[in-house]
């Protein structure tokens, strides 16, 4: 794998095509080719353009956001266990979503947007609160952030469980959301999340060099001329924006943000200037593959994709971990 970007892009392209080609309704490759040229049967063309394409884009964006942020978090916290949910984005979003679900919204565009909006706002609010709880004077020590984040996350999660226990009628809806399944599909969701994902990931891509410096430790990085607190804060904002937007529309999808950056690190090295963009590409690919599996394993039944990511991702990750020769990759 001499050309990491070329191969990653190629694999992503294959995953995109497969995601369009595979579904519970069988559409033959010949028919696909006709549809791409605008001559296919209307029914199948409709399925491709209005169901599979938006879903594919949504899934790819979500995977990219989670893995890109995951790679940044691992570098920021210098902790191999960090994932984009470490300091509360997921638990905050879950709490926001379940609060919104416990209210009877009228059936309207805004009534339907209430849940992703509440999830998005609550996710950012959680990170915000954790950030200020962890502040000591002018600095934000990493360990403080993790501890405040973990404690606040537990608090939010238990509050979520409590609310779910109280409003039994919405449990199905809430569970479906918390297990990570695209509840909102179509172009509306994509247009709403796109700016945050683009801005968030865009910032992360340009912070590769600064993430490399952070690996020397806060003091050393500071001496090398890096404004550590400012860098960290910007990284947090960028990752949180991308993750919160993804979570708001796709629900909580675990594991992708943790393993994809590690896989990329094992295969292509730990230089963050490469690692961030590679994780973005890899995350999109990994979630697309998980989503394809979620659609076909029990077709026409679909499985929440959050179940697949860990069910298939964990063994795959362990297999790579065993095979990787350079064990000192971290």
């Amino acid at each position, binding site marked *: 794998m001499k050309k990491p970007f070329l191969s990653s892009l190629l694999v992503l392209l294959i995953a995109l095509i497969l995601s369009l080609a595979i579904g519970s309704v069988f559409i033959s490759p010949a028919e696909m080719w006709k549809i791409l040229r605008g001559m296919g049967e209307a*029914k199948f063309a409709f399925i491709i*353009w*209005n169901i599979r394409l938006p879903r594919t884009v949504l899934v790819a964006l979500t995977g990219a956001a989670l893995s890109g942020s995951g790679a940044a978090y691992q570098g920021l916290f210098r902790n191999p266990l960090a994932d984009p949910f470490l300091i509360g984005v997921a638990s905050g979003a879950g709490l926001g979503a379940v609060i919104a679900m416990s209210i009877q919204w009228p059936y309207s565009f805004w009534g339907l947007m209430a849940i992703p909006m509440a999830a*998005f706002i609550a996710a950012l609010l959680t990170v915000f609160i954790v950030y200020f709880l962890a502040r000591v004077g002018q600095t934000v020590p990493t360990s403080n952030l993790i501890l405040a984040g973990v404690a606040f996350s537990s608090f939010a999660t238990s509050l979520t469980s409590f609310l779910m226990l109280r409003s*039994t009628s919405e449990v199905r809806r809430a569970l479906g959301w918390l297990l990570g399944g695209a*509840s*909102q599909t179509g172009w509306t969701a994509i247009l709403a999340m796109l700016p*945050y994902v683009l801005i968030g990931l865009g910032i992360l891509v340009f912070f590769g060099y600064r993430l490399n410096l952070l690996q020397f430790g806060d003091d050393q990085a500071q001496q090398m001329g890096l404004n550590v607190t400012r860098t960290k804060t910007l990284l947090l904002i960028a990752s949180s924006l991308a993750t919160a937007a993804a979570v708001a529309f796709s629900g909580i999808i675990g594991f992708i943000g943790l393993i994809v950056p590690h896989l990329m690190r094992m295969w292509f090295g730990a230089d963050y200037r490469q690692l961030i963009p590679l994780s973005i590409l890899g995350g999109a690919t990994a979630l697309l593959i998980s989503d394809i599996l979620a659609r076909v394993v029990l077709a026409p039944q679909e499985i*929440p994709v959050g179940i697949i990511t860990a069910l298939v991702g964990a063994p795959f990750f362990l297999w790579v971990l065993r095979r990787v020769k350079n064990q000192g990759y971290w």
Partner: protein
Amino acid sequence: MFRKTLILTLLAALLAACAPAPSTPVVDSAPTDAAATEAVATEAATESAAYLVTSDGLGREVTLAAPAERVVSLAPSTTEILFAVGAGAQVVGRDEFSDYPAEAAAIESVGGSMGEYSVETIVALEPDLVLAAEINTPELVSQLEELGLTVFYVNNPTTIEEMYGSLENVAALTGHDASELIDALKARVAAVDEKIAPISARPSVFYEIDASDPAKPYTYGPGTFGNLLIERAGGYNIGSEAADMYPQLSLEQIVVTNPSIILLGDSMWGVTPESVLTREGWGEIEAVKSSQVFPIDDNLISRPGPRLVDGLEALAKILHPGLFP
């Protein structure tokens, strides 16, 4: 300074999150769409005089140009209603849990466990009507609607009489007449009401939905059909005073309330009266002492369709065996 930037960024984020979606219909996104939309939303698109305009359980206005010929049902209750009003032959798709009547099994499934439906299977069936129920999320309804499908959302009735309304709605949508069916159901309910009317004592009932943890079984609380039917059948549901719709009662509460009859809605999962009689700590309960523990088909109690009347009769028979020989 930095904090200000942060706050501004977040504010901007909030505002942007509130930005409305494009007002153009979502389906206009690819070259082949025009044709495809037409193909899928045939009835809705034509300007011909509407056969039926009615509002559904979400307050949406649903318009059909002609009685629906191809119907996808997303819940067991709507499938049962469709078959009961004589529209069984028009059902082209059903959810995974629709198992009644037996003919439903032969119809193509569109998924549904864990709330996940295969939207593309639904679209591929080219239905001119999709029937949804309260177990379906509004998100699903809006998604199907955006894809150009006509969706009718059937509310959960709160009384048996309201259930007749669901039957009428579905019959009208599919071009059938439910009045005979409703008259027959009304007569059966009236027969039960009449026999129950003179009773002086209402036996107290514990209805078990799930007792995976026998120290904290689930039961029907206020606002559920289970509660409704037990009261209507001349019983007192000990779950009726709980705060939630599906409360977990502690064994202590059950022992104190001391129900004289236990109904096993979980008998379809293999729970038998014998197993309840040997449960630890349950021996003090009146129903267990006198062996008044009965299995019951929970599908008759939990699905808001015409079989609620079967459920009512089954309950009345168990609660007042003397009145229903």
